[in-house]
């Protein structure tokens, strides 16, 4: 069937009706999905598109969240004005995280160094109680947008949806352009990419900064969603979660990041829904991830790409 890419708009348009059918709690879960969409879209840029084993994502997430939290509590800024600064803080963290990669650190060495970055940030949140509230955490005031307070999950949802749509479209445009092509060229063969005139160092920096920016905005949304940030929110479990999302969704696929976020966030809630399954969330979750990766090594987006090529990102390879 010949489809047009405008069908992608069906998803956000249909989503507009969600507050009509969901209770506050389920709406909260959907809002969390929106947060994880940005977290995984950003993560996938570095891991899936640039092909680097870098796990600094949790640092970007935490920095974005705390940036928003600190700007609202310490400077009294309304939340909506902190979203873009939180993105820039994430981007700065991305630049910092790219330093080992720029110095030629790759693979497992890069993985362990970037993991350490996340843990270092968690240590920093605990050790700077004046700013972050330390281990007690930071209570973030109710988010405000143009003077309006977002007092319930439904209101947050519409604002989050708007942000996610804008950021996802912007990211998609970059990844489908010569920039995305350069990322994939570097992933395939760095030397050959440089020999084609692609400034590989600049593209490493760009990928990490872009990733940090997108994830930082996700962090800012997270701060507004949960209202209380604590260092444990940004621990190693989060790394596994982010990684599971992009593996299940599809490495290097933006559509996959979205699918993965929805699925992985929804799974525990669905399990909780069935009383006889309560208590086995963890292992069902684990088995589900293993099954998907075993049978769909390129993630759910590879399945979708088979249904119709329209669902395939330009530079996603199943």
């Amino acid at each position, binding site marked *: 069937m010949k489809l047009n890419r405008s069908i992608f708009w069906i998803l956000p348009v249909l989503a507009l009706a969600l507050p009509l059918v969901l209770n506050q709690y389920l709406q909260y879960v959907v809002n969390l999905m929106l947060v994880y969409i940005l977290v995984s879209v950003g993560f996938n840029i570095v891991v899936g598109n640039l092909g680097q084993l870098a796990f600094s994502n949790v640092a970007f997430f935490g920095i974005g969240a705390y940036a928003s939290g600190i700007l609202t509590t310490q400077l009294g800024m309304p939340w909506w004005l902190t979203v873009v600064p939180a993105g820039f803080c994430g981007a700065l963290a991305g630049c910092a995280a790219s330093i080992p990669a720029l110095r030629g650190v790759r693979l497992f060495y890069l993985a362990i160094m970037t993991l350490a970055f996340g843990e270092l940030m968690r240590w920093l949140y605990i050790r700077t109680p004046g700013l972050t509230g330390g281990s007690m955490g930071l209570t973030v005031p109710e988010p405000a947008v143009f003077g309006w307070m977002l007092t319930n999950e439904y209101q947050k949802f519409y604002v989050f949806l708007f942000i996610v749509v804008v950021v996802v479209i912007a990211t998609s445009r*970059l990844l489908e*352009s010569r920039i995305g*092509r*350069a990322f*994939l060229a570097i992933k395939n063969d760095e*030397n*050959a990419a*440089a*020999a084609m005139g*692609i400034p590989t160092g600049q593209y490493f920096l760009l990928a990490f900064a872009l990733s940090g920016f997108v994830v930082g905005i996700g962090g800012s949304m997270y701060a507004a969603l949960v209202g209380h940030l604590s260092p444990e929110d940004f621990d190693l479990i989060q790394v596994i979660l982010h990684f599971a999302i992009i593996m299940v969704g599809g490495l290097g696929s933006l559509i996959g990041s979205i699918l993965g976020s929805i699925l992985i966030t929804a799974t525990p809630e669905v399990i909780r829904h069935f009383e006889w399954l309560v208590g086995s969330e963890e292992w069902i979750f684990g088995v589900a991830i293993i099954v998907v990766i075993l049978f769909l090594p390129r993630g759910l987006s590879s399945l979708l790409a088979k249904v119709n090529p329209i669902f395939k990102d330009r530079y996603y390879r199943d």
Partner: protein
Amino acid sequence: MALLTVTNATVQFGGLIAVNQVSFRAEPGKVRALIGPNGAGKTTLFKAIAGEEQLASGTIHFQDQAIHTLTPHEISARGIRRTFQTGGLFGELTALENVLAGLHTKIPSSFGGLLANTRSAKAVEKAATKKALKLLDLMGIAHVAEQWARDLSGGQKRMVEIVRALATDPPLLLLDEPAVGLAPPVRLELMNIIRRLVDEENIGVILIEHAIEFVMTVSDTIMVLNNGEVIAEGAPDEIRQNKNVLEAYLGR
């Protein structure tokens, strides 16, 4: 004017001198072949020209400008393009996308233009795609444009690599063992393509190759390296008669 002037170039790996005081000039419209046994320093010399290895001493000038302090992508942007001994293609990109990646520096869309998806950003991408397809067609491989590079045959891969390197109309092309693994008719085709580029487009080519008949037929000048040093240089016929070369390389 010489296109490329290499003067007393030396590359060292710790105590090992891989390239020792090598000097030569490459001219436009000429094929210069580098031959020599394995480990003679041919690829290292290539890498030094392309900026992947640092010179311990000596200089490299391209169109009268020093390039031995530049990075690989800067050298590529100046107009020296290379192919690789193995790999080199972006396997997950299609043949067409490989050529587009080769055109990277010629696609002048700005970051903001891409974000806003402006008409001019779309236009430059479209123009580049058109050019890439035309180049693939010129080499007779337009039919594989949409195939992933990793799925192409050895000969097709080599052709795509050459198209990708030539996409920016570089004055100088470095070919690292282009004939390896190619069937005789494909070799012949490749030879014709190289001669056509050199004779009609006035491109300078430096070629590393072990297939000796290929080298003897296609080259204007042959330079023989052994243990990092130039042991002979001359026209194919002279090299064929050279006693040092016979001992070191041709094995008689």
